[in-house]
């Protein structure tokens, strides 16, 4: 029965090729617009750390100006001062502690055989690799001792490995970073890109991963050029790098993992005690406030999903609605023109339900064709989005999500556009049309 109706539907579609093509095209455009914006939205609004959302936290401490609130996010600086971050690392006792900051460094071969390059790098404690799931191609993170002492070891990207060692096994070899010799302990796999880059949302949420990681406490020894934000409120006399480390400047991004509720309670107690202690020394003059944000909260506080992303989704859904109503109008027009045929079928004994289903089948064929074409068009739509937005290169790509959404749209559009016209035509009075014939 189904195949019979589908054959009838196909014959009817072919009978009015122009009208049918226009309907398919309209539906396809609406679906393509929605698939494009929804695919973009789905990636932009995703949480890459969803599986550890309950145990991973971005730490915020309110060490800001007693006279004025911090100007951004939730009114507390996104980053910690060096001294507070260091205290959390040394005595906070969390299951894992990530201190990290974005820097730019000059990298050279030890024999100066290639021209120096400036690269995007991160200072980080070794837990960065496990908390943010960085896969290794060779080697691994530096040791806990190297971490605590800030030894001159480095993890590099696959691209840098190719640049300096032409793909040779690089672990144990050295590169010059800012004029100092660093020993390579690991090479990141090139698959690693975190979208959005939840570990650092200060300078954009869709950026290339860093090319090098240096043990965080190298900064104890010497300054690095920050490629992130360094924010301050207090006028402090800075005469040396050690002075800088002791200031109220906030520039260290701090994450902890706390695997059990007890660990979390203990860590919070530690923070409260720590802040009280610092208050005695004249710091933390504002009311006691700290936040442990889950990755999900962190993405939301930092406004990763832009207003434009939302507006585009609304716009495309409204556009699809127009396209579907358009399809309803055209289908209705077409079905009513064929009402005499339906009347004849009814007179020959077909039930209303049968006439209804027969016409719904035609709407389904048009909906399916529209969705298939829409899926194809959305591929071009995503190419267009990538060329319009330079920072959505990794984001605007077709995925399983797009295909499933297309199937859902096909079903919905067939039902929405087909139901009303099919119902109208199924009500037609056989007598009237028979007389007219």
């Amino acid at each position, binding site marked *: 029965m189904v195949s019979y109706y589908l054959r009838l539907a196909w014959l009817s579609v072919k009978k009015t090729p122009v009208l049918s093509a226009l309907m398919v095209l*309209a539906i396809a455009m609406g679906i393509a617009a929605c698939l494009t914006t929804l695919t973009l939205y789905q990636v932009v609004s995703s949480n890459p750390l969803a599986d550890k959302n309950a145990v991973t936290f971005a730490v915020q401490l309110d060490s800001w100006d007693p006279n004025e609130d911090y100007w951004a996010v939730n009114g507390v600086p996104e980053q910690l001062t060096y001294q507070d971050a260091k205290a959390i690392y040394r005595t906070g006792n969390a299951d894992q502690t990530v201190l990290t900051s974005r820097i730019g460094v000059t990298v050279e071969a030890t024999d100066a055989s290639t*021209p120096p390059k400036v690269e995007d790098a991160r200072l980080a404690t070794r837990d960065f690799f496990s908390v943010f799931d960085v896969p290794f191609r060779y080697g691994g993170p530096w040791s806990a001792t190297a971490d605590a002492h800030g030894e001159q070891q480095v993890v590099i990207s696959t691209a840098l490995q190719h640049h300096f060692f032409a793909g040779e096994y690089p672990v144990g070899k050295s590169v010059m970073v800012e*004029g100092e010799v660093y020993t390579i302990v690991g090479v990141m796999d090139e698959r690693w890109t975190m979208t959005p880059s939840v570990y650092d949302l200060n300078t954009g949420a869709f950026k290339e991963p860093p090319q090098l990681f240096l043990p965080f406490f190298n900064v104890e020894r010497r300054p690095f050029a920050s490629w992130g934000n360094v924010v301050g409120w207090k*006028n402090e006399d800075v005469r040396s790098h050690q002075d800088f480390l002791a200031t109220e400047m906030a520039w260290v991004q701090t994450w902890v993992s706390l695997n059990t509720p007890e660990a979390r309670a203990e860590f919070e107690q530690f923070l409260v005690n720590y802040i009280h202690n610092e208050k005695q020394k004249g710091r933390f003059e504002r009311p006691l406030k700290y936040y442990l944000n889950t990755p999900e909260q962190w993405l939301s506080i930092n406004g990763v999903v832009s207003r434009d992303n939302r*507006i585009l989704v609304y*716009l495309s859904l409204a556009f699809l609605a127009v396209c579907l109503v358009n399809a309803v109008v055209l289908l209705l027009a077409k079905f009513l023109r064929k009402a005499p045929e339906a009347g004849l079928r009814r007179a020959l004994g077909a039930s209303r339900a049968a006439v209804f289903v027969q016409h719904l089948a035609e709407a389904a064929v048009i909906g399916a064709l529209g969705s298939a074409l829409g899926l194809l068009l959305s591929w071009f739509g995503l190419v267009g989005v990538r060329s319009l937005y*330079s920072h959505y290169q990794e984001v605007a790509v077709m995925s399983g999500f797009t295909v499933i959404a297309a199937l859902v749209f096909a079903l919905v559009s067939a039902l929405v556009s087909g139901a009303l016209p099919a119902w*109208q035509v199924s009500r037609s009075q056989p007598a009237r049309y028979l007389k*007219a014939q």
Partner: protein
Amino acid sequence: MILDTAPILKSLWRSKVGPLLIIAQLALSIAIISNAVFFLQGRVDKIQRETGADSQALAQVWVKERPGELLRQEIIERDLENLRALSGVRNAAAIGQSVPFSHSGGSSGFSRLPEGDPKRVSKPAATMPADHAAVATLGLTLVEGRSFFPEEIDYYPRNQRPGTASAIITESLAEFLFEGQSPVGQTVFLAGAVPLTVVGVVEDFLGYFPATDFAYDNVLISAIELSEKVNYVVQGEDPAGLLPGVRQALQNTDARRIVKDERTMASMIRVHYSDDYAMVILLLLVMVLLVFVNTLGVVGITTFWVNQRRRQVGIRRALGATRLAILRYFLVENVILVTLATFVGACLALMAGHYFTAHHAMAALPWWYAPFAGGVMLIMTQAAAWWPSQRAARVPAREAIAG
């Protein structure tokens, strides 16, 4: 009734579902288009706002000395000399940080009173350590006072910030701090602690990150830190053509220092507004597609109605109706549909506008956008209805007795 409004309304009422649907489609489209035009206008205004600098003639580049080495005053002066010697370069300047549209810079609070004074009011502004050529090179317009003198520029070693310096501030900041008085010769405090003497006021220009609240509040400071890095800005007729020469001039003096990101100000501005450009294109696309889909719908439904009423048309022709009257009938029908749709669409548009104002902190949609979109839609749909209506007008009188 010359326009046949009454019989048209009656016949529309009788068929109900079709006309209601086409009204719904048109209304929704009018609501979308009026909001989209409004968004679009906001973006275009933003992209087209004055930069306040001679942006089309500028290019910038930054250099970083070899690891462990710091820039010296002689190096910066030699670099600038080399840059000025390039053919096509009109001027060149050194800027410590906060080059307009570079997305990289620093800011601080500025006030007329020092820290500790209870009456102190402070305003954040971008800090731009700059040399004596910066005002001329960037193409800023002095409205009061003067630019820096060459001997006034203080190149200081890292971590040895001088106790004072000269400053040139933008009009917005001058107005906020001095409320109409002349700021020249007065003192402003950086971070409530470092006194700066204002020597000049320039017209507002957009700073290093124009998305901030203090986009137009910029302070040029005559003290430049000798760190490992400095920015150069060059001015010339064809900034894009200068880039290779600029790179070479800076790299020639030392092959192992870093020369990076040489680019024109125009390209930096394009990057800064790229999301807005994208939005403009997407909104335009949506509008074009909407008009297209509606045109399609109107052609389809009018064709259907014409076919459905061939007989009635034939009767009217037989009874003496002119072709023009028939044509007018279908076109007036379309006017009625679009007019009704405009009313519904205006309500929808204002509701959507209200939602965006309440939830996304956007400006309110002016009331006349929807009638305007309705007008445009009317022109487009009249054109669309013309072709099937003409076919109706050509229906011969004998159709009345056909079949």
